[in-house]
């Protein structure tokens, strides 16, 4: 069974539910503290930096955590092809560490800036609609999502706006298909206004990968949508219908929610990778 480290940095607060979400798809997952010895990190097949407020978001969200030796070690492991998923604050850490999009090795090429929507500012907590734009990250984090499928996912952030001041970086992200997950309207059309575009992110990006696809900086919280019981009753689309149909049926409520798709994809790819390694 592939083993995934859920990195507990002081101030993160989603490590337990993230661990449970990974275990729900058959992965071995355990919480690993940020100050474990350097040798510990190589024991794992993949890494998740969960959401929260690492170091209280001091200076900027993710700015201090990005400089931890543990993140350095994880970056080194990722170079061998191991996956790294940063969820929300974890995504901010990956961006501040220069791990996505990674056109120039180690260089910080983006920011996750404060949300920007007309007449709205600050922290935003709601459900958003996502669609996959196929790219190198598809095999890792979106392998079973059908073209055009609209996936609801909760977001909760104050600084979720992917942004680069370098037009060349933006262009390459688009051309190379690195904006794997994008916000869309509930209908699946372009997220051209709030609330479908919740934060003004460039390319309506909710999640951006590196060029190899194994590192994903993902702002929504899939671990908060791993079970059907986590889906709000009033949600529109097929997931809301499933949720309403499950009222009073505990077994159905314990069924998969929309966020599990991402973890299942990760589990399948890790399984394939392990099989390939065993053969070679």
């Amino acid at each position: 069974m592939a083993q995934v480290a859920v990195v507990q940095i002081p101030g993160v607060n989603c490590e337990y539910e993230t661990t449970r979400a990974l275990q729900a798809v058959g992965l071995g997952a355990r919480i690993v503290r940020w100050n474990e010895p350097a040798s510990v990190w190589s024991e794992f097949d993949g890494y998740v930096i969960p959401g929260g407020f690492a170091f209280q978001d001091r200076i900027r969200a993710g700015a201090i955590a990005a400089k931890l030796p543990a993140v350095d070690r994880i970056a080194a492991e990722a170079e061998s092809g191991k996956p790294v998923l940063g969820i929300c604050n974890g995504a901010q850490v990956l961006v501040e560490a220069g791990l996505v999009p990674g056109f120039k090795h180690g260089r910080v090429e983006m920011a996750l800036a404060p949300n920007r929507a007309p007449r709205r500012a600050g922290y935003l907590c709601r459900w958003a609609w996502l669609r996959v734009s196929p790219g190198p990250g598809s095999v890792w984090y979106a392998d079973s999502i059908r073209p055009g499928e609209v996936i609801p996912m909760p977001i909760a952030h104050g600084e979720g706006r992917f942004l680069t001041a370098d037009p060349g970086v933006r262009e390459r992200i688009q051309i190379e298909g690195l904006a794997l997950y994008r916000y869309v309207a509930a209908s699946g059309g372009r997220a051209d206004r709030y609330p479908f575009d919740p934060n003004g992110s460039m390319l309506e990006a909710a999640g951006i990968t590196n060029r190899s696809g194994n590192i994903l900086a993902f702002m929504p919280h899939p671990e908060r949508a791993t079970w059907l019981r986590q889906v709000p009753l009033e949600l529109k689309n097929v997931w809301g219908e499933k949720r309403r149909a499950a009222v009073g049926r505990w077994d159905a409520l314990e069924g998969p929610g929309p966020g599990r798709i991402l973890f299942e994809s990760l589990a399948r790819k890790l399984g394939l990778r392990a099989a390939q390694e065993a053969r070679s």
Partner: protein
Amino acid sequence: MSATLLIRLKITDLAAWTALETGRRLLKPGINLERVAREQLLIFEPEQGVRADSFEGILGEAVRHSNFFVNPNKESYRFLSAAERGESWTPPEGAWGILTRPREDTRDERLRESLLREHPMPGLQAIRRGKVWWLWSRGPDGGAAVSDAYSALGDLRDPKHGLLVNPHAEAAMILTGALPWSLVERFLTDPAPAYRAAA
């Protein structure tokens, strides 16, 4: 000429403390970082053809007697009318500064609207926001080693270089010595300079 409000925490500023601790690890040997402080800067821009003193009285009252800008339990402030602030902005003794602003529009329209709802005043065009980090650094020669210190603590380039400014979201200006307020205002008013990747 605009009125100016500078706000800083009077309780322990954990962000500044963390900047100090982290910054010390990023500096080259021989350069010491002795202290870091952080202030919010708000500039109150008058409408064209309106003198700042037409609203400064009401604004000053709002600053002093309401909790609109300042929480007196944890923050201290300096409110300087256009006449009081003088021609230039001088860093605290022994310090130099990094003034930052968002790359986008620096106007805080929501703040202006809610201020005017509570404290109607004529002629206030915009409230612009910046943030300044004051640094007390010392190089081997006893000078502030501003260039080396900025290289280590200013624009973020990779995890080992840069800290206080992510240049993809923010623009920065170094404050050494007395700086004309007109330059500060221009820095906050003009579009941010184009991004240039550091070599």
